[in-house]
């Protein structure tokens, strides 16, 4: 069957998972207290008005029918209408998503730029000064919450230098890059310690294995040993770690977009939740869940490409 078989199988497994996710998101609306019709029509609406809204939204239909309709709509990209702005939720998300994509991709890139070299150094210098120093800074990074790191960066870097805007997003590529730098750095400071620690552990376990002894015995040393023998074997666990971390980063984005006043989906979720705008909350939740599923799927595929043994391990 081979690796392509593995990827195909993994894709098929995702389908029932997606239905499960849609079901959970759908149920959020059902179990949340409060009457959606009242929410839309307002406090002074009469019972007749409410009934009209219910009819219009199909709220009187059996739950199964509502679920079927919801799945059908979602499949067509229709996530319903915001209670607040009356605009399609899909459009609201569409307006906000590019900011978050910028934030996450820059944040992940920075995380990798920081954590791969430091993780490698910590593993190669295990139990020596460099290792202790890296682990110490890692602990520091872990113990600083993102909203605090963000504020500190704003106060100590953005305001005195004026290089970076204190909030908001830009229009040109350069403006966007400037606006995203500090938020992405905040993300990276919070997530790097986790990746550094995982990568260090993965590399140490690889370096203690017999095949590293074999490599050293035939004279493979230094950078060549790390590149050709250690990194590819440690990369599998590393990719999985990064995938898990991206899941957390999504929720980090909620905090960071609020701190830096970035108009992304994280900020959108906060606004929707505060306004009890349930269709929007549903839309954001669905989006976050889909991203996590996609990232895990991608990480499994990358792992399969990196490790020739995956085909027999499934």
């Amino acid at each position, binding site marked *: 069957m081979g690796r392509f078989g593995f990827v195909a199988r993994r894709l098929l497994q995702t389908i029932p998972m997606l239905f499960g996710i849609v079901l959970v998101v759908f149920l959020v609306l059902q179990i949340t207290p409060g009457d959606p019709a009242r929410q839309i029509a307002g406090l002074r609406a009469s019972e007749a008005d409410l009934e009209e809204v219910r009819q219009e939204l199909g709220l009187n239909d059996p739950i199964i029918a509502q679920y079927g309709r919801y799945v059908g709509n979602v499949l067509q990209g229709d996530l319903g209408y915001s209670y607040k702005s009356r605009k399609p939720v899909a459009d609201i998300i569409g307006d906000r998503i590019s900011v978050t994509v910028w934030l996450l991709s820059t944040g992940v890139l920075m995380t990798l730029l920081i954590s791969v070299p430091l993780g490698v150094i910590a593993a190669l210098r295990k139990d020596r000064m460099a290792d202790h120093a890296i682990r110490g800074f890692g602990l520091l990074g872990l113990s600083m919450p993102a909203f605090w790191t963000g504020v500190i960066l704003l106060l100590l870097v953005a305001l005195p230098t004026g290089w970076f805007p204190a909030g908001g997003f830009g229009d040109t590529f350069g403006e966007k890059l400037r606006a995203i730098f500090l938020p992405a750095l905040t993300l990276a400071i919070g997530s790097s310690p986790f990746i550094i620690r995982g990568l260090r552990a993965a590399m140490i376990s690889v370096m203690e294995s*017999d*095949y590293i002894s074999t490599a050293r015995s035939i004279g493979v040393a230094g950078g060549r040993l790390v590149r050709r023998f250690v990194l590819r074997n440690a990369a599998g666990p590393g990719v999985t770690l990064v995938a898990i971390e991206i899941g957390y980063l999504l929720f980090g984005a909620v905090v960071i977009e609020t701190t830096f006043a970035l108009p992304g989906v994280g900020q959108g979720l906060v606004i929707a939740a505060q306004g009890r705008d349930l269709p929007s909350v549903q839309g954001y939740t669905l989006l976050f869940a889909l991203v996590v599923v996609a990232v895990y799927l991608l990480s499994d595929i990358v792992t399969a490409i990196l490790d020739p043994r995956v085909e027999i391990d499934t």
Partner: protein
Amino acid sequence: MTKRLLEVEDLRITLQAGSGTITPVDGVNLALGRGEALGIAGESGSGKSLTLKSIIGLLPQGAQVEGNLRFALGDESPIPYTSTDVHGRGISIIFQEPMTALNPTMRVGDLIAEGPRIHEGLSKTAARERAVELMRQVGIPAPERRAKMWPHQLSGGLRQRVMIATALSTRPKLLLCDEPTTALDVSIQDQILGLLQEIRINLGMSIIFVSHDLAVLGELCDRLAIMYAGQIVETGPTDDVFTKPNHPYTEALMTSVPSFDATSVKLAGIEGHPPDPRSFPPGCRFSPRCRYAREDCTEADFELVATDADRSSACIHTEVFAEGGR
């Protein structure tokens, strides 16, 4: 003895174990001639594998090595060396478990080509050709096709042949074998032993072969060293040691091996357990398990002494043992 290739003098290896330290190899002396095959026999934990790994400088991190190791890289007499002097040059090693000893994310042909690429500066293509050639030399059928395979796609026997080809890729003078047949089926074991014998004769290589299996050592080795509790207790030509062991431990080892020609054999086994490396018994370390032990065995200082022109034993009662034992 022919010209010396390797000398090990008073080797002592200390490891951290919990809060204290242990000395699993404690005063080992070895000498190996060019083209010679030496077998080191002993139970698990006797220190035979560590001795082997210290020769090629592949001990685990934190291991302390004392003593003198000398190796002849050229035609001169053996001189002190560091691990980088011999890695990829004079000494190669093959391990017990070929699955874990081969890089799982590297095609086997690329692994075998590493040595030639680094040390002979061969181009990628030339190194690949050499890898295929080496694979043919160690008896791997269809080497061109197999060179492109991953380790997990090969059988255990083929994996060990790949390991041997990798070891040979750097043209070593000395091949260290750390129980290379233990993890294999018996029929494959014989093939691998035959291959090693053939390589040794064709390439004039020296071999140190570590095993707990005396029959395996008997097939391949000119000389034997018997290890017990971190020390060598007897050395001598293989045939002599087999026909007339000079140490009670050797004798006990041999009577615990089943043989085909004996009619009604009761396997003796050895009473008791190998000693704990955290507290070796005083005097002769085998004395608590020895059926010939006398009072002075626990008092006498341990020392390997020559009993013959090319034999030595650490037993202080060799005479008594020779009369009483046989």
